[in-house]
């Protein structure tokens, strides 16, 4: 009687196809992080919009605040560490998601090889610079 093996898929070194179209297996983490940051942003962005703008609407209407976004209001908010966490996470997630997204659009149009390396390095540098810039800006509110 034949024993049926259905669920064990062994890792056998069996001859697989070769050739110029062969995919090599790369880009998993970029793909996953795009989705992880997406979920993070779906949570953090509404929080950001609400605490920076919407909660101030009634204050502006009543005249307690001169505008929806004023230095003193932001500075006051950033005295609480929890808001710092929100802002730094938001900054890093948004930069990663946006720049990786742009990279993906280019890859859809066939970017690969050296061009891909150049673009990835360039966008990563841009992201790093923008991140530092963002932290400096946040810090300026509480100096």
């Amino acid at each position: 009687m034949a024993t049926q093996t259905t669920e064990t898929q062994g890792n056998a070194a069996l001859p697989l196809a070769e050739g110029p179209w062969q995919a090599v297996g790369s880009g998993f983490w970029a793909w996953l992080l795009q989705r992880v940051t997406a979920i993070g942003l779906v949570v953090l962005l509404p929080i950001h919009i609400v605490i920076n703008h919407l909660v101030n609407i009634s204050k502006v209407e009543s005249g307690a605040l001169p505008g929806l976004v004023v230095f003193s209001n932001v500075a006051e908010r950033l005295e609480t560490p929890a808001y710092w966490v929100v802002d730094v996470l938001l900054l890093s997630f948004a930069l990663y998601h946006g720049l990786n997204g742009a990279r993906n659009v280019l890859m859809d149009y066939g970017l690969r090889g050296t061009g891909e390396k150049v673009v990835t390095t360039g966008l990563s540098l841009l992201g790093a610079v923008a991140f530092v810039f963002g932290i400096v800006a946040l810090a300026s509110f509480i100096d």
Partner: protein
Amino acid sequence: MEAKIRVRRYDPTADGKPEYELFTVEMPHSATVLDTLLATREQLDGSLGFRCACRSAICGSCAMRVNGESRLACKTKIIDVSHGGTVTLEPLASLPTLKDLIADMGPFYEKIRAITPWLATDPAKRAPAREYLVEAARSTKLSQFAACIQCGVCYSACPIVAIDDRYLGPAALAKAYRFCHDPRDDARSERLSRLADEHALWRCHTIFSCAEWCPKNVNPTEAIQNLKKLALLKRLRLLR
């Protein structure tokens, strides 16, 4: 009824640029695009180039673009696409043209070959006394993806194939899933490692054009998303 077709003509031996030529031919009300092409070739222009064989949506030879939409010519009725006017016929997109409506299917087949479209079975692991057994539910699922007739409609319909020539495309990836999901295959891990690639799985953005136009209801989109799930589980070491 009068069937009016506007055909993209291209003769590679004549040094010319592609041109569109209009043909008007009297056809029965139920005529398909393929019927119209055959009548045109017989009555009006014997040099008209197009592929056909079975005329019953099983061989996949007559795949072409009808008013920009990738379909099987034998399965498309003229009255469904003419809307009282002219039907534009062009060869499948994203493939070189050999002549008129005949596309060079070479790159399409090469990409399917690239995903190892055969069972890779380790004889040391399995040596059944009789046949390999596959349970019914699994077999039904596999037959959905094995139903692919390799016509190229999905490949031609996919916008990503159109702009990224390295992308393996829906047919190749659906076939890859057919083998990853087959319990008789022993190379799933390697397959997934290769497929989890920028120009394989990660280029699919669930646009669904392939699933919408497939004449055999293969639904490559479902296959590709299942592959993504498998690739994720494997990477997180949760795949047995």
